[in-house]
């Protein structure tokens, strides 16, 4: 018996000897083994995955809502709630049939009407959904209770990718009454279609979220693979415990107070590895791509020569060592905008980021661009460790090529607001900010908003380049993998030439869990199906 158990036992004895009401309720061994305590990457502050598109909301939503299709570990969409699909009318009409026995958490059957309402809401907010809406003959609608149809004006070969992708917002299926909510307003109930229920009355935003097993969920028969296949729950209850302090989370994991920590700080990994009860491994094989984002609207970066000058001087190794450290197994340089190791990866046009850095040539090119020594406004979020590190490296980089830096040290909330401003940098606007993109979002152009270059409608920085957009469109129309590869290579080359933004490298992070937790896998989303506790 250890000291804590001794103290608990003492409390129990105290209760039995007349101090009723002072003892702690205890979980039985079995209940404890079927309860998983998980520390997510961030606070689950809201729970509408269409309204709020933060990754943490998406990750929790995957437990509660199911999708029509799901990506497997080969990044291919597989049937999930759908039993079959049919493509007719020259590729312009998609007809889907739902599996039998699907139920929502309120016990009601999942109907095609629910699916149609869910897809219509999702399509307003999602990039691919918006593309489909733009070419739809009529909104998706129910044919009968299990069949729904989407009629388009022109073929859309990536339909199944759109419905199964894991980029936010995902096409989750909700009851019709919830899905009729304005996509820019939050839903008021959390009635799901997935393997776990959301326990609303135990939700303390910023502290805790609880999910319990939904017994009427019908998993598919195929083996599970990421978001595809049979999502079988071995756990009765999953508690998400929000811990803002990494040192506390680390101590809690080592002490057995939590079971799984999604994103430990790299600095704490050595001490976690020394604990024999803790397992540490790569969290997501698709990793992250660091991003150095230019404002294309204002001088000097409205001139491609200025952007290229920075690219010529930029050392990804410097960025990666600052962000991740010296462990080379965690990072690599990346002369590409796409996730390495994935089928469409291409380094076409990436030479500008390869080899020794040429500071002198960069200085000359910068001078040619007409840079007149004006201060360069760099927004640096100090409350996000990777962004703070990238900001420091950028400061040194720009200084090295003779730029004057206006280093705006602020928080992510302020960067989020200021980056939306198109004003002049000295009047509330900006020149550069940093962020990172989940590798899962950069495997293809489908949800790669950051690489779009269609001006005013593009992501912050508002780049414009017809060659990038043309290559992107080719990918959407590509009939096979070879054509897709060619389109992505063309897009990579065009975006490198245009310097749409600059990748600062590819890096992975760790996750850590207690050794008695079985079935944890490396993936872009923490998947709880097939996870158990011994």
């Amino acid at each position, binding site marked *: 018996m*250890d*000291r*804590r158990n001794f*103290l608990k036992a*003492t*409390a129990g004895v*105290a*209760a039995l000897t007349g101090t009723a009401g*002072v*003892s*702690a*309720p205890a979980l039985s061994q079995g209940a404890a083994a079927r309860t998983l305590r998980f520390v997510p990457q961030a*606070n689950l*502050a*809201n729970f509408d995955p269409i*309204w*709020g*598109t*933060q*990754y943490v909301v998406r990750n929790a939503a995957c437990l509660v809502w199911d999708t029509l299709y799901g990506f497997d570990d080969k990044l291919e969409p597989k049937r999930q709630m759908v039993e079959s699909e049919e493509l007719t009318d020259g590729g312009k009409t998609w007809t889907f049939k739902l599996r039998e026995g699907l139920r929502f958490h309120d016990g009601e059957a999942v109907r095609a009407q629910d699916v149609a309402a869910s897809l219509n809401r999702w399509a307003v907010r999602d*990039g691919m959904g918006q593309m489909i809406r733009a070419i739809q003959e009529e909104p998706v609608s129910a044919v009968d209770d299990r069949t729904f149809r989407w009629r388009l004006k022109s073929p859309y070969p990536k339909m199944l990718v759109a419905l199964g992708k894991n*980029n*936010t917002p995902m096409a989750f299926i909700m009851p019709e009454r919830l899905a009729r909510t*304005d996509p*820019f*307003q*939050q839903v008021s109930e959390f009635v799901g279609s997935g393997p776990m229920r959301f326990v609303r009355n135990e939700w*303390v*935003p*910023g*502290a*805790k979220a609880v999910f319990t097993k939904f017994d009427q969920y019908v998993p598919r028969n195929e083996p599970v693979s990421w978001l595809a296949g049979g999502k079988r729950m071995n756990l009765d209850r999953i508690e998400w*415990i*929000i*811990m*803002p*302090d990494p*040192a*506390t*989370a680390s*101590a*809690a994991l080592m*002490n057995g*107070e939590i079971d799984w920590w999604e994103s430990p700080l790299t600095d704490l990994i050595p001490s976690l590895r020394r604990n024999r009860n803790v397992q540490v491994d790569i969290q997501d094989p698709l990793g992250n791509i660091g991003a150095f984002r230019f404002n294309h609207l204002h001088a000097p970066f409205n001139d491609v020569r200025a952007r290229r000058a920075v690219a010529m001087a930029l050392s990804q190794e410097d960025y990666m060592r600052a962000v991740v450290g010296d462990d080379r197994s965690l990072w690599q340089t990346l002369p590409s905008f796409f996730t390495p190791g994935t089928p469409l990866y291409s380094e076409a046009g990436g030479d500008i980021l390869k080899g020794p850095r040429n500071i002198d040539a960069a200085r000359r090119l910068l001078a040619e661009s007409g840079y007149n020594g004006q201060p360069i406004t760099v927004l640096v979020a100090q409350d996000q460790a990777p962004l703070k590190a990238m900001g420091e490296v950028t400061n040194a980089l720009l200084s090295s090529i003779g730029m004057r830096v206006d280093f705006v040290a*602020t*928080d*992510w*909330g*302020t960067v*989020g*607001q*200021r980056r*939306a401003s198109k004003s002049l940098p000295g009047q509330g606007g900006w020149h550069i900010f940093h*962020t990172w*993109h989940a590798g899962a*979002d950069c495997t293809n152009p489908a949800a790669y*908003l950051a690489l779009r270059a269609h001006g005013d*409608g593009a*992501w*912050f920085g508002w780049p414009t380049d017809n060659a990038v957009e043309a290559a992107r469109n080719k990918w959407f129309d590509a009939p096979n993998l070879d054509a897709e590869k060619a389109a992505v290579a063309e897009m990579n080359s065009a975006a490198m030439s245009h310097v749409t933004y600059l990748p600062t490298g590819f890096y992975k992070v760790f996750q850590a869990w207690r050794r008695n937790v079985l079935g944890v896998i490396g993936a872009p989303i923490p998947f709880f199906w097939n996870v158990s506790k011994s």
Partner: protein
Amino acid sequence: MFAYIVRRVLATIPVMAFVALFVFSLLYVAPGDPAAVIAGDQATPEDVERIRASLGLDRPFLIRFGEWVWRILQGDLGVSIFTNLPVSTMIQQRIEPTLSLMIITLILAVSVAIPMGVIAAWQQGTTIDRTVMGFAVLGFSVPVFVVGYVLAYIFALELDWVPVQGYTPLKQGFFPWFQNLILPAVALGTVYIALIARITRATMLEVLQQDYIRTARAKGAGQRNILFLHALKNAAVPIVTVIGIGIALLIGGAVVTESVFAIPGLGRLTVDAILRRDYPVIQGVVLLFSFVYVLVNLMIDLLYTILDPRIRY
């Protein structure tokens, strides 16, 4: 006395009104955009704009302020931009851990610091005095989070006596509740103990020089009676004042302590709300903290009349 209490309670109204205006204005001019946070990193500028409009954040200052004040007057603190939960519900969810932490810290600090200060004054210039004052300097100098980490390492990780983190509601039993709070209370209480101990010592030194103490000694009063009955009672007014002022320290310290020990209290709620720019929550919590602070000061003022009968309002 009753008239004084009524006057003081009425005086809180303009104070709270000023706090309300100040907080609202500050948030209005502060940079940051909740719509951008909600929309996420993949959102387009148009999405962010639509969310901002749906939240009413694009409306003029005076209209937003007027609506907010009108709701406050009706006892409605509004709804969180992010969680869609009423602010009052969120405060209700979080108030017990913070209140528990503050009460335990207060009891711990007062029961440790006052005897420390009294003994230091009594033993002025000795090793005991220097030790107590050394501890006080350390207590002031070492940040709460460092004390927290050290305590957690020793008592939770190494000795395994208490949990590293978390909070167990009191209704689930006194012992687990106390077990979760003792480390945070010690961490948070360190600076508070230092403050009270120093002021107790200083005041006691002054009081111990007074004629009536010499008279008490001459009459043969014991040391304990002299220290705790004659001297401490006369030194109580400044000590109580510092305890009251220290409530603000506790509120500020709770923000850090709750983060270090993962206690789901109001301090963490405040930090989370500030980082996300959840305006209604920030406004609600700051108003609550201000109200508590004003109330504590009123209670301290009233306590003066008990501690020193010469004081009349």
